[in-house]
């Protein structure tokens, strides 16, 4: 312990001076020529005086005044029309300087000197922490979402708490404990087996007999009756009776086709048309939440395209027409003649809405609806509209619709499943076993142990335990069993601040000195100026370090091994810390870090902001979209575990995909788990720029967006973020509505200096990616069209021009040269990644005062080919990571 403290004292460097941000002197001429003439000392117009506005932005009032100048120029209000106007180029230059300076000034003025605000467990961490502690997944979707675009959900400052939330924590903890604590015999594990043809054939026969034929008969009688009201034939009105004729014509042939196929005698076909699009199964309401297993025996039909041999499993939701909530998508490799049994492990949620059965008034068809109704279907865009269109087109060719590609023999569910009963967590909580005396003293011991584990090594005070025991006592007095009576005090622990907050007060040495009001152990005082304020930085205690490390790399609590190394203080020895970091990274739990960090770092929430046009991109359905998202995460994971340089995110000779994505990309590879596949040189895949998810985010679901893509590359890959979109800049739309290429649409950006100042950097990068369509597939022509729904009114083909120039003058003739040019900027890329890792790990926005730290990490990592583990080791080994 002592040596660690000394180490801290010696590595201490003076904190950087408050950063002064200066507007470049070269811009003074512009300022003088176009602003000061009216806004000088003498009778300034509109009472706005600018001659005394300093080019050095050292405080907020000065920043506010410059902000107003920027706003007035951006909005085009200034200089006024009747005054001398700057040339476009000089105005663009000035704006570029000023907006850049303002970004820097805001960053400098917002620099807290590295203060880390104590943080609450965010939603992810909360779920993981409960899971690690109790072995069950809580459904925390009722908790508010943490984090927002551009930040990380680890920023303590932005993790708020409200009274509603506090009550939620109590409720969620109680639900989890209800699942875990055994108060009775092991719940029976049940199994139900459903022959798929039973439900399907009965339903289709009923629809044929009543709805189809009944409707058709009514129509014919009505038609022959010469004007009698439709109600005479049992149909509400004329439009309904005509609809029934339409349905008769559309559905009769497909249904007869379905029922007469030999495969439907022994199983069910999954159809595209309405006859039998899904095979469902329902888990009854009385089944408790928990782990369940679904099985299905499936085979692929001969003479159908291999790309259709994917089955989707999802939650059917409230109606058959709704989009399904997808659980999995699997490739069906077995033929119908020799089907395979597939297993799916699922977590059955707590029941919130009871199962309901909707019975069609005339069809007599029963449709089971609810959150526990699962269904299998052929992979397809997640809306029935697309399937209906496919069926319509195919109907004309085949007379019945689309040839079915998948067949299901039977489906099964089994559960709830337990590894043990009582559960492992139950046995951990009631640690003395079944035979222990169930008295107050035992209750107190249980609570003390549980709280110690939940509080991650923080001290549990006797006065707090007294309160908890009192709760137990009260419940016991009310007649509850020992186990039952423990639930409330245990859930209180899981809503207490020591559990919910990662509070750090520093090592024992630091604390004592502070308490004594003595000189602070390690003191950093800003040399001059009052920002950042003078403050002290104390080294973390061993347990705090263990906790910070595990929440960084596991998004969850430290395990016993890590915590005991923390408690003993050994963790503060560099070699031990290094070994533990390596251990944590090698654990499957590191996946939580990969997903949590990567998704936020790369801004991947945009993937969920819009739907893809399924007419244009039928292949980019929800399953592929999900696989595309996973590709990014699995690639990052492979880079971590296989020690690739992080720059292989820019360009690589491999991809990490599964069979579904292989099919999408047209690559050859089998296996439903993500795995590494080498790609030959000259293919666009390999690296983020060739990933469908990244390219799809750079679109609006209809067309590619060079602006989104260019800005993303600048932000995420080149560490050269454009200033945030400024308010009140006029938008140019004179080109819209014409059949122009995406590139042509953007030429207008270069005409206005307000736009050009940023877009001349952004747009060309996007042009270089124009060979990828909105869904990330390669194209040689871009089709611009005007369409509504499935009817295209006009369209025009444009050959792709993917050439451009980067802001530093580097020219590229297309995607491959652009990718090479970006791959060369490995230092900038690594620095950007490091900055993000630092702010994710420390739980605060990256600041100017982090520059030295980031540069230092980069230096260390470059000694070992810039791998992710080296970067993480350097970060974990830094003073910033080990102190508060």
């Amino acid at each position, binding site marked *: 312990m002592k040596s660690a403290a000394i180490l801290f004292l010696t590595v201490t460097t003076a904190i950087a001076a408050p950063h002064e941000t200066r507007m470049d002197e070269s811009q003074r001429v512009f300022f003088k020529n176009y602003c000061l003439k009216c806004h000088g000392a003498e009778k300034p117009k509109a009472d706005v005086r600018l001659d005394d506005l300093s080019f050095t932005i050292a405080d*907020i009032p000065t*920043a*506010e005044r410059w902000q107003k100048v920027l706003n007035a120029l951006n909005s085009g209000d200034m200089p006024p029309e009747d005054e001398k106007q700057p040339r476009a180029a000089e105005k663009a230059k000035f704006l570029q300087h000023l907006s850049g300076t303002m970004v820097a000034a*805001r960053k400098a*003025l*917002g620099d*807290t000197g590295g*203060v880390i*605000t*104590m*943080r609450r467990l965010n939603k992810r961490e909360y779920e993981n922490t409960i899971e690690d502690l109790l072995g069950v997944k809580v459904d925390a979707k009722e908790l*508010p979402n943490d984090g927002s675009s551009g930040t990380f959900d680890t920023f303590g*400052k*932005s993790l708020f*708490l*409200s*009274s*509603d*939330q506090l*009550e939620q924590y109590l409720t969620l903890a109680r639900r989890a404990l209800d699942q875990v604590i055994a108060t009775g015999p092991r719940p029976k594990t049940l199994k139900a087996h459903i022959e798929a043809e039973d439900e399907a054939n009965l339903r289709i026969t009923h629809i044929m007999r009543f709805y189809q034929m009944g409707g058709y008969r009514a129509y014919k009688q009505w038609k022959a009756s010469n004007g009698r009201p439709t109600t005479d034939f049992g149909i509400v009105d004329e439009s309904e009776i005509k609809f029934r004729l339409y349905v008769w014509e559309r559905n009769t042939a497909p249904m007869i086709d379905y029922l007469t196929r030999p495969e439907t005698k022994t199983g069910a076909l999954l159809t595209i048309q309405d006859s039998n699009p899904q095979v469902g199964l329902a888990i009854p309401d009385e089944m408790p939440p928990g782990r369940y297993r679904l099985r299905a025996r499936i085979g692929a039909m001969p003479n159908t395209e291999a790309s259709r041999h994917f089955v989707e499993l999802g939650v059917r939701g409230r109606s058959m027409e709704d989009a399904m909530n997808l659980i999995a998508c699997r490739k069906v490799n077995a033929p119908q003649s020799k089907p395979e049994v597939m297993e799916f492990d699922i977590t059955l949620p707590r029941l*919130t*809405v009871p199962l309901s059965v909707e019975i069609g008034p005339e069809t007599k068809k029963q449709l089971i609806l609810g959150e526990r109704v699962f269904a299998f279907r052929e992979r397809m865009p997640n809306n029935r509209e697309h399937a209906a269109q496919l069926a319509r087109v195919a109907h004309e060719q085949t007379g019945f619709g689309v040839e079915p590609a998948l067949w299901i023999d039977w489906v099964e569910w089994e559960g709830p499943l337990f590894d043990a009963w009582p559960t492992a967590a139950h046995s951990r909580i009631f640690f003395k076993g079944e035979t222990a005396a169930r008295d107050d003293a035992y209750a107190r011991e249980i609570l003390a142990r549980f709280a110690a584990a939940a509080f991650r090594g923080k001290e549990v*005070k006797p006065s*707090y335990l007294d309160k908890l025991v*009192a*709760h137990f006592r*009260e419940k*016991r007095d*009310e*007649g509850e069993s020992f186990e039952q009576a423990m639930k*409330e005090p245990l859930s*209180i622990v899981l809503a*207490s*601040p*020591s559990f919910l907050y990662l*509070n750090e*007060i*520093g090592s024992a040495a630091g*604390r004592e000195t*502070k308490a004594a009001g003595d000189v602070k152990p390690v003191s950093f005082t800003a040399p001059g100026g009052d*920002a950042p*304020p003078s403050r002290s930085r104390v080294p973390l205690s061993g347990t705090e370090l263990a906790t910070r490390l595990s929440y960084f790399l596991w998004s969850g609590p430290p395990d016993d091994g890590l915590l005991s190394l923390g408690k003993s203080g050994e963790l503060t020895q560099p070699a031990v810390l290094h070994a533990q970091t390596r251990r944590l990274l090698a654990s499957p739990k590191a996946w939580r870090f990969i997903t949590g960090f990567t998704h936020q770092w790369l801004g991947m*929430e*945009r993937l969920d*902001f*819009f*739907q893809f046009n399924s007419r244009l991109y039928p292949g980019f359905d929800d399953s592929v979209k999900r696989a595309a998202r996973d590709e990014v995460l699995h690639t990052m994971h492979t880079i971590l575990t296989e020690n690739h340089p992080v720059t292989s995110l820019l360009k690589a000779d491999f991809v990490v995909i599964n069979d579904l994505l292989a099919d999408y990309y047209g690559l050859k590879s089998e296996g439903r788990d993500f795995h590494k596949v080498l790609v030959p040189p000259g293919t666009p895949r390999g690296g983020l720029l060739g990933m469908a998810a990244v390219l799809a985010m750079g679109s*609006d*679901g*209809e067309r590619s967006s060079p602006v989104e893509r260019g800005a993303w590359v600048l932000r995420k890959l080149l560490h050269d973020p454009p200033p*945030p*979109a*400024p*308010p*009140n800049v006029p*938008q140019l*739309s004179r080109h*819209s509505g014409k059949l122009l290429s995406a590139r042509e649409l953007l030429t207008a950006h270069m005409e206005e200096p307000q736009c050009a100042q940023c877009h001349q950097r952004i747009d060309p990068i996007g042009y270089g990616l124009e060979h990828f369509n909105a869904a990330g597939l390669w194209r040689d022509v871009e089709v611009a069209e*005007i369409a509504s729904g499935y009817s295209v009114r006009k369209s025009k083909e444009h050959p792709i021009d993917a050439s451009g120039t980067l802001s530093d003058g580097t020219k590229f003739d297309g995607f491959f040269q652009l990718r090479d040019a970006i791959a060369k900027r490995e230092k900038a890329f690594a620095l950007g990644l490091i900055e993000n890792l630092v702010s994710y790990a420390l739980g605060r926005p990256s600041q100017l005062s982090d520059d030295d730290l980031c540069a230092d990490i980069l230096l260390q990592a470059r000694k070992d080919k810039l791998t992710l583990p080296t970067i993480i080791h350097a970060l974990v080994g830094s003073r910033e990571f080990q102190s*508060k």
Partner: protein
Amino acid sequence: MNTPLTRRHFLRSASAVLALPALESLDFRAFAATKPATPPKRMIFLNFGWGVTNETWFPNVKKTGADWELPPGLAPLARHKKDITVVQGCSNKFADMPHWGSTFWLTGANRFGEPGQSFHNSISADQVAAAHLGGDTRHTSLQLNAPNADDGHGPGLSLAWDQRGKPMAGLENPVLVFHRLFSDETMPLAQRQAMLAEKRSILDAVTVNAKRVQRGLTKTDTDKLDEYFQSIRDIEVRLGKDERWLTVPKVKPPIAEPKPGLAGREEIKLMYDLIAAALQTDTTRVITYRQPVSTLLRSLELKFAAHDISHYGPGERMEASQKRDAAQSELLAGLIDKLKAIRESDGRSLFDHTALAYGSNIRTIHYLDNCPTVLTGGGAGIKRGQHLVLSKDTPLANVWLTMLRGIGVNTERHGDSSGLVKELIA
């Protein structure tokens, strides 16, 4: 130990609880039993994140006062034209993020107002109103929210920011709102009293731990932990209120329990129904709703991202933007219908006693000036049926101040307000 003590226990704790606030409860019952002679004033704030279609939502600036024409974007409000006032020219001068449509909408705060921090906010107008109007209702205020990331609202958990400028959580699920407002307690009184006592003692336990955590924290961390203490205090206040309301049965819901799983247009409509019902039953008097945009678009079968639609140009996107405007206006018109249809004890309508503001901090695209603002209802004495074009950059907070004063809040300023909007006062 095997004797069930449940019943006795409830009675015991019940008497303990009753002893304390007896006086208050008596007062309260007297109040609850007789409806006030003049119906109370109510306030509603509705915000849609991404702004409107500039060309077709705003009335012609040349036609102001009572002589104005409804633009297409507001056309669905035609039947209420005499009752709505459209205000142009207002903005929050510190707002600088073109994707934050509601963060500073009701606060008028300076994001950089706290040195060394990159985010700061202050109390929102609805919470000022709630402090004034909320004392006598079961819920001091009600926050409704849509949870989507792409709704153009910016940071916050609802439209409401508390006294300390911290975000207040909003309810996101109409079914949950319904139950919060109207579900009858099936539990016997004694048991509910026991539950209140139990909740208090839970708070007691966590407070002991919170005090422990407090020791040795830095100033910043103490402020953070203060949110926890504040949550405890808030629950205590709520429990106190619950206690006062314990013997008052929840009012019969004037609407049926909503179906679960509705999204977009149907969801907003449902929330509007709940707003009217909550005010009608005097369950609360101040309601904010941070509305969804993404799901609204989906329900209108518009497939673009909500943000991307806000960058419309002539063609498909602009049509989509206009469809969204019309759908929103239609929903608002429906809400006004409802408020007008509800009679109050003085024979006038709920609409006459309600002040409603509808708008966004984003005008259109990336513009933060001339925030779209529609005012309606008779609650704040706002002059209705007119089109006001105020001088450019009038603080939006002036409008809120005028409304707050209109409902009887005695305050001199709100946010960055510089005064009342005299043209608005009837």
